[in-house]
């Protein structure tokens, strides 16, 4: 393919008008959604706004749409970018003109994304992320895929040659991992459904709170209550109804987990380049992310008993200076054990995961027990308020749960410090392994409460630029020698 010249100031693809228009319309609707709803409801109920005849309403809507369209066109016309030898220039702004210049060497990440609208009109958006805060980010809304790929290549390749005289990276690339539908389905089923459930519940609650007044006005809540309020006859009916609700909740949560797994990980592909790793995924929002091993701070491997039996591991990769929303995307699901090991060695070449792991002191177990008791008492208190005299019955669930929590949390907690890497294992249901490179540690901290002091126990907190790990409750002597060792490693 003929290399595309980006050195002349150019606009994005003219389809960009459509994308900008759609984005702003969506933003507009989202912002004034509640207002629309309120208006609509009062119009339906014919309370006021009698001057709002259909024709005037149409006029207003057309006006707003035209205004947004005009805005989109102006924005498109004023959005120009070009690339010179080592800088990316962007001028934008309708009234306030902005000129953004990003040196290539300061570019952290380049993403290619494609949302639903962009998929329909066959363009992609390209995001350039620099170190610094979230706002220092450039997004080009609409580019041909070929153009975007070429731009990405040019942004990355020249920089690397300048930086390290390395071979052209893109030349050797192979698809390392592609997720199959079956594995994705398994991944969805073995998700933590409790999480999905909480999301659904909070979503429904949020909606309810937002529209409480309208619902009351419309009398929906009364209807709901009367339909839910069955004749409280036998205890059997009550149990049956509760069981039904529980089963329904589990089903909905499972479905939600599966769907959300599919949407965010559809067509997940890991491409291995010479130096970098590329992740492609997404159904509605197609993403393409490039990971630079140099910037990777730590890796988190997550699995649980069920997932391990199915051979499913999740790999999260944390880079410095990446905003929270994007951080979520650096996740590869449904990997086999050996694939995880391969990718880890790609990022941390000397990591082998061998060698003995040390365990926290037994004091950690005591502390977990102590905390569980406090938590249990709190829940009991809460239950007393809610259920009255039958509150003790919840202990049949709470007590075994807490016992399991203490047992497994202690069992899974361990750590290992090798010449180059720090590994901390933790988790209760999940099995979480956090690997960080000792060289990239930013700060260390020893924490000790007065109870711990009496027992000569301390915890070590270790921060990298993107994450914080904790080695809980080890002997004070150990903690100090770990800190000494880490500092020696960082500083020498």
């Amino acid at each position, binding site marked *: 393919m003929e290399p595309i010249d980006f050195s002349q100031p150019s606009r994005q693809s003219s389809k960009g008008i459509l994308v900008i228009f759609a984005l702003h319309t969506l933003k507009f609707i989202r912002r004034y959604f509640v207002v629309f709803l309120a208006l609509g409801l009062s119009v339906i109920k014919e309370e006021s706004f009698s001057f709002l005849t259909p024709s005037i309403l149409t006029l207003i809507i057309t006006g707003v749409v035209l205004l947004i369209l005009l805005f989109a066109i102006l924005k498109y016309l004023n959005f120009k970018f070009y690339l010179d030898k080592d800088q990316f220039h962007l001028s934008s702004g309708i009234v306030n003109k902005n000129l953004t210049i990003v040196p290539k060497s300061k570019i952290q990440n380049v993403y290619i994304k494609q949302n639903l609208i962009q998929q329909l009109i066959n363009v992609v958006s390209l995001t350039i992320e620099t170190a610094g805060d979230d706002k220092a980010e450039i997004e080009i809304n609409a580019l041909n895929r070929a153009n975007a790929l070429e731009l990405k290549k040019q942004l990355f390749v020249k920089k690397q040659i300048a930086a390290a005289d390395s071979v052209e990276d893109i030349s050797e690339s192979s698809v390392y991992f592609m997720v199959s539908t079956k594995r994705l389905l398994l991944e969805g089923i073995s998700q933590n459904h409790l999480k999905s459930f909480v999301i659904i519940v909070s979503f429904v609650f949020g909606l309810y709170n937002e529209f409480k007044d309208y619902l009351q006005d419309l009398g929906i809540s009364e209807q709901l209550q009367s339909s839910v309020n069955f004749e409280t006859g036998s205890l059997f009916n009550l149990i049956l109804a509760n069981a039904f609700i529980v089963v329904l909740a589990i089903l909905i949560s499972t479905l939600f987990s599966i769907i959300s797994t599919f949407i965010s990980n559809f067509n997940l592909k890991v491409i291995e380049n010479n130096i970098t790793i590329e992740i492609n995924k997404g159904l509605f929002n197609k993403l393409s992310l490039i990971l630079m091993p140099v910037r990777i701070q730590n890796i988190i491997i997550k699995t649980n008993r069920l997932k391990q039996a199915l051979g499913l591991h999740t790999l999260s990769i944390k880079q410095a200076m990446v905003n929270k929303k994007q951080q979520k995307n650096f996740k590869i699901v449904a990997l086999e054990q050996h694939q995880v090991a391969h990718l880890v060695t790609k990022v941390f070449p000397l990591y082998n995961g061998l060698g003995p792991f040390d365990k926290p002191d037994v004091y950690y177990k005591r502390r977990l027990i102590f905390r569980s008791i406090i938590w249990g008492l709190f829940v009991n208190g809460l239950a007393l308020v809610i259920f009255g005299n039958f509150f003790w019955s919840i202990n049949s669930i709470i007590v075994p749960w807490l016992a399991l929590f203490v047992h497994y949390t202690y069992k899974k907690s361990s750590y290992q410090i090798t010449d180059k890497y720090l590994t901390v294992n933790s988790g209760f249901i999940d099995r979480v392994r956090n690997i960080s490179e000792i060289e990239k540690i*930013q700060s260390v901290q020893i924490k000790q409460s007065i109870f711990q002091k009496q027992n000569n126990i301390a915890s070590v907190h270790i921060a*990298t630029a993107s994450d914080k790990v904790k080695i809980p409750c080890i002997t004070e002597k150990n903690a100090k020698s770990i800190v000494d060792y880490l500092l020696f490693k960082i500083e020498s």
Partner: protein
Amino acid sequence: MFSNQQINLDTLPSIADVDLKPISKQYLKIIIFNRLVFYGIIGFVLFIAKIKVSHPNFQLIFWYLFSAVLLFCILNLMGAIFAFKKRKYAIRTHDVIYSKGLLVNSISVIPVSRIQHLEISRSWLARRFNLGTLKIYTAGDSGIDLRIPGLKYVEAKQINDFLSSKINGAD
């Protein structure tokens, strides 16, 4: 070539041996002053309420409320005074150490090579006492940023200059 010598852990410089230096005693006055102002405002609001609110229940519980605030104030002040002795710091060739806390004691260490930038901030009161707060920032938002309050301004400046020169000298 890659070499991998064994390191004798006992020969490493240990943070246990570091002689930590207490911060300026003047800072205790600032802490006490701040706490007193805080509780003073609460007490003041309570008294205003006593005058304005004529509900008999409030008049009844007023003295309970007042003594509770007083108790909290005394406990808080005592805690602050005892914990003050734990506020210590040290500067080594390669790192900065700050230790604090009575109930939960923490010792934070930031290697000089990881410092992103430094800042000295001084409140109105700190300027009266000629004190300053040294803030040390590392990369990333999850990092443990260090804040050493109650340093003598001259000393804070010295440390700041020393660390700045070290950071700049490194690259």
